């Protein structure tokens, strides 16, 4: 991974007595798709607004690409794209005109901007409707236009705030694929969401925020195993006519930490993936093995665990 592109230290924001973001320490590296997870009202959007310099932090500091967003908002805004949660466009302008306006605000040269806009509209699959009024667009189309809009300025970093809310499954796939493609161009993406499966699909690393605190941060698989009992695997073994000694036998396998549950359905906790050894032991003991399932760490479990703690 590259160098750190976003860094916050003890970033805090208080709105009349209510602490929206509390001493947040975050580090995001260049080139990754960072999933910023948390329930509604956890402080995700507030954090982004502070990183963009749209809201002043109550205390603490943030650094985006080496700039302080509070002091140098223009430098930050030049290289950062922001797709707000409820993105809107000028409804009586066409998609192309809306993007042209953004290009103008970014002081792009007219000719260069026009080429870039056509390319981007093709990238997000809106070439056919480029000259139609945005008022006719569906929510999914507007979101894709929003992605094109932030790419007009060729940012280094893009914040996508709940880009998949209220879109049909096909539209969600489009957006997610788009994100992966953008990331390949070297643009760092911060993807805010509470839609766990989507985050799991595209993100390399996640941070979970709850009530303004960052409760967990790291690559998904590591967080997963952490959530599922201190870095261990859990294997569910289903057995018909279990041998009474089976539990003992499994416990004796090297690496098994604990066996629990009813004899027909055992839950084995171990350090490594011991499925083959367990299968062999079970069959050797004379019991018939019906099935074995390794418990996948789904993001949902991780998420739930951290929210119970928070």
């Amino acid at each position, binding site marked *: 991974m590259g160098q750190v592109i976003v860094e916050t230290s003890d970033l805090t924001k208080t*709105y009349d007595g209510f602490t*929206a973001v509390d001493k947040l320490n975050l580090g995001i590296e260049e080139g990754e798709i960072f999933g910023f997870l948390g329930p509604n*009202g956890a402080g*995700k*959007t*507030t954090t982004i*607004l502070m990183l*963009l310099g*749209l*809201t*002043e932090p109550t205390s603490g500091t943030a650094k985006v690409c080496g700039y302080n967003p509070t002091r140098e908002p*223009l*430098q930050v*805004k*030049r290289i*950062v*794209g*922001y*797709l*707000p*949660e*409820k*993105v*809107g*466009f*000028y*409804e*009586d302008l066409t998609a192309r005109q809306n993007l042209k*306006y*953004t290009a*103008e*605000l*970014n*002081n792009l040269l007219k000719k260069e901007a026009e080429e870039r806009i056509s390319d981007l509209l093709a990238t997000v699959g809106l070439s056919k409707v480029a000259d139609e009024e945005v008022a006719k667009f569906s929510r999914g189309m507007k979101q894709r236009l*929003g992605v094109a*809009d932030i790419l007009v*300025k060729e940012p280094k970093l893009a914040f996508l705030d709940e880009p998949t809310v209220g879109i049909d499954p096909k539209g969600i796939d489009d957006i997610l694929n788009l994100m992966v493609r953008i990331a390949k161009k070297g643009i760092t993406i911060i993807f805010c969401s509470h839609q766990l499966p989507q985050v799991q699909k595209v993100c390399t690393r996640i941070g979970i925020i709850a009530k303004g605190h960052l409760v967990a941060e790291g690559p998904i698989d590591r967080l997963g195993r952490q959530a599922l009992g201190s870095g261990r695997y859990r294997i569910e073994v289903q057995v018909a006519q279990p041998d009474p000694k089976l539990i003992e036998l499994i416990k004796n396998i090297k690496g098994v930490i604990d066996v629990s549950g009813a004899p027909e359905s055992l839950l084995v906790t171990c350090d490594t993936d011991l499925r083959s050894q367990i299968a062999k032991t079970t069959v050797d003991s004379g019991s018939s093995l019906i099935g074995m399932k390794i418990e996948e760490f789904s993001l949902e479990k991780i998420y739930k665990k951290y929210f119970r703690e928070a």
Partner: protein
Amino acid sequence: MYAIFRKELADQFNSRRFVILFALAFLAAIFAIYIATQSIRSEVTSSTEFIFLKIFTTSGKNLPSFLFFISLFIPIIGIALGFDAISSERSSGNLSRLLSQPIYRDAVINGKFLAGLTVLAIIIASVIAIVAGLGLRIIGVPPSSEGLLRLVVFVLISIIYGAFWMALAVLFSIFFNRAATSMLASIGLWIFFFFFMSVVAGAIANAQVPLGSNPTLEMITRNSEIAGAIARISPCTLYGEATAALLVPELGSLNSAIMMISTLTAGRMLTPLPFSQSLLLAWPQLVSIIALAAICFAISYIRFMRQEIRSI
């Protein structure tokens, strides 16, 4: 800022709002010309020096003058151009997108205000030009250079007056999230100033200096002074007085009682004041309107600059 100004201007010109406002103003102009041609003959008595300006101030038997129309329409135009300036950006989800672009935040409000001002100036100037042109054709008396000068200043005051109402509407559009609330607040304030302020001023003056059945001259003057001072809180009164001083050169004082008394005691038609004196008469009113517009804009500006973009 130039990009925002250009876009806002294009938006205004393409909007139905602009067409409606222009049609409204145009109708007022035609109507005013009609009234003026009907009754201007009876108005013209001795002096024909400023007959051209009479087109704007002549009222019919039961019909109001152009001056009345325009003082009615300018606030409406100003409010219509400004009431959703910021709130519509916010509710359509454009504001946070706009502010995440590398522009200074004041460029947004400055650009919008300037674009509105341009549209306002175009509407007012063209309506007055239409009336002047048609009037010239119908009565056939060209304006004197002084009359023309008075007309130009009248256009300028009207634009500044419109700018005040627009600044007020923009201010409300920043404070209220809903465009409808902001419009109602502006219109409510306008109705109060336009219709009720003089009633309130009269009532207070009468309470202070009751005129009774046999008032002395001194009491009438005092009463009128108090009423005038209170009524001048209202920008509508300020505009009315400033334009009257400019378009009616015979007007020697803005205090109605003094005017009445001097007409009675002098027992003659009043001679018109030179332009510089009329301007001097209107000067305090003019400055007050400019100050009010500037204050409204300044509050909007500060409020908008300090306003936080919140997620909730």
